[in-house]
């Protein structure tokens, strides 16, 4: 994006900053993965634009849901916020301080405040370390507790997430998926963070265990005043846990609003189509209901379409506007942000399923 190399932006410029206490501000975040060619002389021949100019804020104490289909860049966004993935451009401000300028020791210290809960509890725990070592490592690295107190603290943390503290000498493979995810939560909590990125924390879990982890996360949020960025593709879970929800499509945020507003009256055509796909567990309603089917496939992020990324599949696309000009994410109504040329504060296109289930505009 054009402003990627700009200095720290004027704070008032940033999306949603006017509304109260912002913990994390993401400004025009860009993550491109280079496509290279050549063996000895490697040169860039293109880039996968995983995240292509994302801006939003996370308020202190809230849960911001980040949804989108596979490959839309939501996980990459989460990783880039924590600088696990080096952003190609843009800024991540934590309590007003830019992380991009930090490296080495300073970055490590800052990371104490921001943690992550990973998607795959089987891959995120080192199989060669005991539970005590895994949960105790953050304490050791940051020298948070003296030698004796560390063990006590590990037991407290395990108890907090509902793991029998007497199992601390066991290895991860001796636990179930749900238990492992709890251990991952305990590790994240060890450094007493304020902000936790939950990167699809339940999608790898058995359905019967999901509710437990969701409830645990909510309980911990209440207890410690945590702020979550909750990344998921399960729309009903996001609806349950989030205060506000951001919808991503092909590396960009298309809509951001309060939970009830977004689910009640989605404005962006993509959000409308996406929400119509949520199954309703009531056979009578489900039978009458029709999901909107979008034409075509998601374009490749290595070669995204010009203008609005969604215009190739959008039923209300206007030639000469949507395929040329990139829509800005703007506050259409107070607290309701959308990036669509056709959404106005008074009206927006209504999408419904047509004859062949394909998306069409409601007259």
């Amino acid at each position: 994006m054009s402003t990627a190399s700009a200095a720290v932006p004027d704070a008032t410029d940033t999306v949603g900053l006017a509304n109260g206490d912002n913990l994390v501000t993401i400004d025009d975040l860009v993550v491109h993965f280079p496509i290279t060619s050549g063996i000895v002389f490697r040169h860039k021949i293109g880039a996968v634009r995983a995240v292509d100019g994302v801006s939003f804020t996370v308020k202190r104490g809230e849960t911001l849901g980040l949804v989108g289909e596979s490959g839309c860049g939501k996980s990459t966004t989460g990783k880039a916020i924590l600088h696990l993935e080096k952003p190609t451009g843009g800024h991540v401000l934590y309590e007003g301080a830019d992380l991009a300028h930090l490296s080495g020791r300073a970055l490590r210290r800052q990371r104490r405040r921001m943690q992550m809960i990973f998607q795959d509890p089987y891959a995120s725990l080192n199989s060669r370390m005991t539970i005590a070592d895994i949960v105790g490592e953050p304490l050791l690295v940051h020298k948070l507790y003296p030698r004796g107190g560390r063990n006590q603290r590990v037991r407290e943390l395990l108890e907090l997430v509902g793991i029998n503290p007497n199992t601390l000498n066991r290895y991860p493979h001796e636990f179930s998926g749900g238990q492992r995810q709890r251990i991952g939560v305990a590790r994240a909590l060890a450094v007493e963070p304020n902000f936790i990125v939950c990167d699809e924390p339940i999608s790898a879990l058995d359905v019967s265990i999901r509710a437990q982890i969701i409830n645990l996360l909510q309980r911990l949020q209440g207890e410690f005043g945590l702020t979550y960025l909750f990344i998921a593709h399960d729309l009903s879970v996001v609806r349950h846990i989030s205060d506000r929800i951001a919808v991503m499509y092909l590396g960009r945020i298309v809509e951001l609003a309060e939970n009830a507003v977004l689910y009640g009256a989605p404005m962006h055509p993509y959000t409308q189509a996406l929400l119509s796909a949520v199954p309703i567990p009531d056979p009578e309603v489900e039978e009458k209901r029709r999901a909107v089917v979008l034409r075509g496939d998601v374009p490749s992020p290595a070669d995204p379409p010009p203008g609005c990324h969604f215009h190739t599949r959008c039923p209300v696309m206007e030639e000469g506007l949507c395929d040329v000009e990139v829509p800005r994410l703007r506050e259409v109504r107070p607290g309701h942000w959308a990036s669509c040329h056709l959404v106005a504060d008074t009206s927006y296109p209504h999408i419904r399923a047509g004859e062949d289930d394909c998306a069409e505009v409601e007259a």
Partner: protein
Amino acid sequence: MSYVPPHDPFAADEFAARERAIDVVVDESMASQAGVLWSPDAAIIEHKGTWQEVWERFRKDKFAVMGLVVIAILVFVAITAPWIAPHDPTAQYDDGLTMQGMPVGSSSKFLLGTDTLGRDLLSRLMYGARVSLVIGIMANGLALILGVIFGLTAGFFRGSTETAVMRATDVMMAFPIYLLAVALVSVLKPSLWILIFVIGFVYWTPMTRVIHGEVLSIREKEFVAAARLTGCSNGRILYRHILPHLVAPIIVYTSLGIATTVLFEATLSYIGLGVQPPTPSWGQMIADGQNYYLSAPHLVIYPGLCIMLTVLAFNLVGDGLRDAFDPQQRRR
């Protein structure tokens, strides 16, 4: 607040019940024993070690255990050679040669007969084991250290470091290593230490490649990202999180590598570039005895057998370890 999916009348009760259960214990599997497990004075539950599991799987592989026994015997003989060898390996005995100056066959004095200079073959074989094992282990240790250092840095730091190291590996691998070793040994005067250095130097490439490949896959695992988030330094991530996952390939490739190295040493000794006489070495004994293979075949057969057994034993143990460390990749 419990998680209730919208519009699902059936799920609500179940979830509510589960939520109540969560406050006390967590997993259903634990619930029944919760009272016992959670009491603070209950004994800390011990795990079964990884090494114990590996050993249990290894033990079931009969060939690998046989290889281990052979190696144990070899090591024992090599260490205790000065005490258990019946004769001095360099002493030339008058009764060790026939009237025509030919080596004698086995007798009660010379169990395996003598060589062309009238020296006791069994004693020489025993001392030869020392040379083979010392070079096999030391040269391989050197190759291992170089390979792990290069492979780890190349795989972990990527970028230009990786390009430099891995292209250098490619160049090394493109060299005919026997020729390189022969050239190196002839330039530097052959001795035990020079041999160790040269063999280690020409053999670091396979280990580098193996480690590099492993590190590439391990560094992308989520637990490495988690360690980074935790605040671990690069050194700590390498040492605590990546290196422990390399133990299996390191052990397997070391045992397989020792077999190759023993063979390499025998080859160099055979062409006269190994350990210099009168120190006995198996390869050199074969070279000395081959002119007499018709009249005194034992001069070639016994050292040949020793080399074969050693190489076979290390290969069997290496294969067995590979299977034991990675039960999913068992070929049987």
